[in-house]
């Protein structure tokens, strides 16, 4: 494939010179930090679109039939398109670019102590493909009949037949956009893995790598290993949609469940692809603000590897009612329940790190702690869905939706915010305002629970998540369910309003925030050695050398409660680790 051409073409000489025109500095830059920002801001912009979609369909669900401000009447077709693209955007164009690509690009070279990615130009190409994919997706909202309306899982025949999904142009564009996005992340992932394998600072052994870097690398490997069948499936689905082949059409001898296998073989590891970087972020922040060494570094690492391997054997728990063999459901129930063990181990390790620490409740730390609490709710409710018996009842209800959002919101929203509050000083040289940060925190966490706790009740009562309006089903429509829907929608609007302080804080702090030195949080990892914000080339002429692990906090016999990785040992007697 064309990847190889670039892969082999780049490993030499990259003179990303010091010409300072706006275009070469910010648009066509090969600097990993700028590319990270490009991903970050594109992801945030896409997040606004995805958030707006959720506002529109939640308003419609709360007040069916009435006009939604800033949108208008939501037709069933528009509802389908909105929920489909809300899901797609939030996973492929928000969670992945922000958590993996933005953080990975910004942090990896800094944290492993080198000046850039090993393939800067592939990195730039990766973002450009990603940007094109985002543009294709946005363009698909404006073609006749609108954006794809076959749900983000794109099950055939709903996704393959235009007469069912009602979006003859939106559907293939959606598929092309997703495929391009996958290509972008494959390129980015190859870069991340190769960079961490080869470009680590002198002295940085495998167990000296900060956890967030490990997590992004493991996530990239998981993504790479799981996405292939989906690419193959996407090619077949695209042929079904546009050329009229019958890969997934039973009338032509095809099999619609095959798509579900191909999709979920990717779809379930994908959960861990975004979970792991968020876990890594939380681990970094908890260690720094508990002033304590990470509890069980190797255990967390091995757990995440085990988690990654297990995640390839759970996919059919999404298909318990799709006609899979009941004997297979035993198998997949077992593996699904097993997979909660490594996740629980990791959460316990985080709590163990907090134990006896001297905890600082900065905004970043608050977000990190709430990640543990909220993700736990998501994880525990997953047990009902992983067990085939209960899942047959709960499948495709709001219970699934609430469970899913209790995992993904902590990952994509809470994890991202904690990362931003933590690394903002490194990114832009100034701190975000803590007071407004805390208001933003409480204004995010409380309404978030307000949205999704009622939806658990709706789901347990059997309300189906893809019904555009229950008023059309008088038998199922009850007033108190409607009250819960209104409450959830109200909470969503509160949550959206509380993002305004964040954006104002973000923009104001860029110019007027409190100036941060290189190491405002007294943390150990190498990114805090570089100036804030790091210049081109990150560390100047001498790149740091590593002498110890990343989490040597509160080491006895030391005056300071932190011990940067690059600080040489004072004497031969005091070797650590």
């Amino acid at each position, binding site marked *: 494939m064309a990847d190889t051409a670039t892969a082999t*073409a780049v490993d030499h000489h990259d003179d990303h010179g010091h010409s300072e025109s706006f275009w070469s500095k910010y648009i066509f830059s090969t600097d990993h930090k700028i590319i990270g920002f490009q991903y970050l801001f594109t992801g945030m912009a896409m997040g606004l679109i995805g958030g707006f979609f959720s506002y529109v369909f939640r308003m419609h669900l709360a007040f069916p039939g009435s006009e939604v401000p800033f949108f208008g009447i939501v037709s069933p077709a528009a509802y389908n398109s909105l929920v489909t693209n809300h899901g797609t955007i939030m996973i492929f164009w928000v969670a992945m670019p922000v958590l993996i690509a933005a953080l990975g690009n910004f942090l990896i*070279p800094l944290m492993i102590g080198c000046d850039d990615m090993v393939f800067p130009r592939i990195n730039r190409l990766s973002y450009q493909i990603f940007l094109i994919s985002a543009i294709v997706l946005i363009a698909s909202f404006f073609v006749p009949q609108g954006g794809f309306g076959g749900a983000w899982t794109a099950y055939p025949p709903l996704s393959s037949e235009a007469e069912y999904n009602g979006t003859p142009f939106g559907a293939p564009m959606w598929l092309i956009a997703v495929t391009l996005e996958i290509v972008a992340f494959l390129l980015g*992932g190859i870069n991340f893995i190769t960079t961490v394998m080869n470009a680590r600072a002198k002295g940085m052994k495998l167990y000296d790598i900060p956890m967030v870097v490990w997590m992004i690398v493991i996530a990239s490997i998981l993504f790479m290993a799981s996405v292939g069948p989906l690419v193959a499936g996407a090619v077949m689905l695209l042929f079904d949609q546009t050329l009229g082949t019958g890969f997934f059409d039973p009338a032509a001898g095809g099999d619609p469940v095959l798509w579900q296998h191909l999709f979920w073989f990717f779809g379930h590891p994908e959960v861990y692809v975004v979970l792991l970087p968020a876990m890594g972020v939380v681990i970094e922040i908890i260690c720094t603000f508990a002033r304590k060494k990470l509890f069980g570094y190797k255990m967390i690492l091995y757990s995440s590897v085990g988690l990654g391997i297990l995640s390839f054997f759970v996919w059919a728990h999404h298909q318990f009612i799709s006609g899979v063999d009941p004997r297979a459901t035993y198998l997949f129930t077992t593996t699904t329940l097993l997979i909660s063990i490594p996740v629980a181990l990791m959460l316990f390790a985080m709590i163990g790190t907090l134990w006896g620490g001297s905890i600082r409740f900065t905004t970043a730390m608050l977000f990190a702690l709430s990640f543990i609490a909220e993700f736990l709710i998501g994880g525990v409710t997953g047990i009902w869905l992983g067990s085939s018996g209960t899942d047959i009842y709960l499948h495709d209800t709001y219970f699934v939706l609430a469970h899913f959002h209790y995992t993904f919101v902590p990952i994509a929203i809470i994890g991202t915010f904690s990362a931003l509050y933590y690394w903002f000083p490194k990114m832009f040289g100034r701190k975000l305002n803590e007071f407004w940060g805390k208001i933003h925190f409480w204004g995010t966490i409380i309404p978030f629970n307000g949205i999704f706790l009622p939806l658990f009740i709706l789901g347990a009562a059997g309300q189906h998540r893809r019904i555009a309006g229950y008023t059309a089903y008088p038998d199922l429509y009850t007033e108190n369910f409607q009250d819960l829907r209104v409450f959830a929608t109200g909470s969503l609007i509160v949550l959206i309003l509380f993002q305004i302080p964040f954006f104002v804080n973000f923009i104001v702090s860029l110019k007027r925030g409190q100036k941060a030195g290189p190491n405002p949080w007294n943390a150990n990892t190498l990114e805090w050695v570089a100036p804030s914000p790091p210049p081109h080339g990150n560390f100047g002429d001498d790149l740091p050398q590593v002498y110890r692990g990343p989490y040597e906090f509160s080491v006895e016999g030391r005056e300071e409660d932190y011990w940067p990785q690059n600080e040489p040992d004072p004497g031969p007697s005091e070797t650590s680790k």
Partner: protein
Amino acid sequence: MGHKIIATGRSATGIPTGRLAVWWVIASEIVIFGGLIATYLLNRFLHGSWAESAAYTNTFIGGANTFWLLTSSYFVVLAHSAAEKRDAKTARKYLWYTIGLGGMFMGFKSYEYATEISHGFTLFTSNFWSFYYTATGLHGFHVLCGMVIMAIIAENDIKKERNWHRVENIGLYWHFVDIVWIFLFPLLYIAK
């Protein structure tokens, strides 16, 4: 001007970064083709009609194409060993031999497609044929890309006696494309 990126020159694993990346490209491609081949096997076991359709594929052309590809892999190894010895002339010669055999493959493939289509076996005839064109088409696309990249390396790098390591990298990729064919050939042509 132009400062060299230090990261690119580092090699904590001992494997050059370029080669390492090619291995990861191959890893990601294995799962793409793996997904396709798994789909094929699933259908082949479930539907007896697939075996009947497979009887119409042209084993002779498939065999000839296997021969071209395997031979080309031999030449790319020769090109690599010449590149190791910094012998630009020989390396370029063998790279072009490889491209030529890739061209033979593509030519036979085109002839094969043309006869099949003219006999009524199109992308839409049945799911077997849909799969056949998708899998061999995707593979053929990889062959074509490999040929283009190899031509660029031969003319842009080896001729100018630089970036010798790229011969090995493209060789790895070429072997991978070869191996994919080694899976497709028995599945689509031999197993009737």
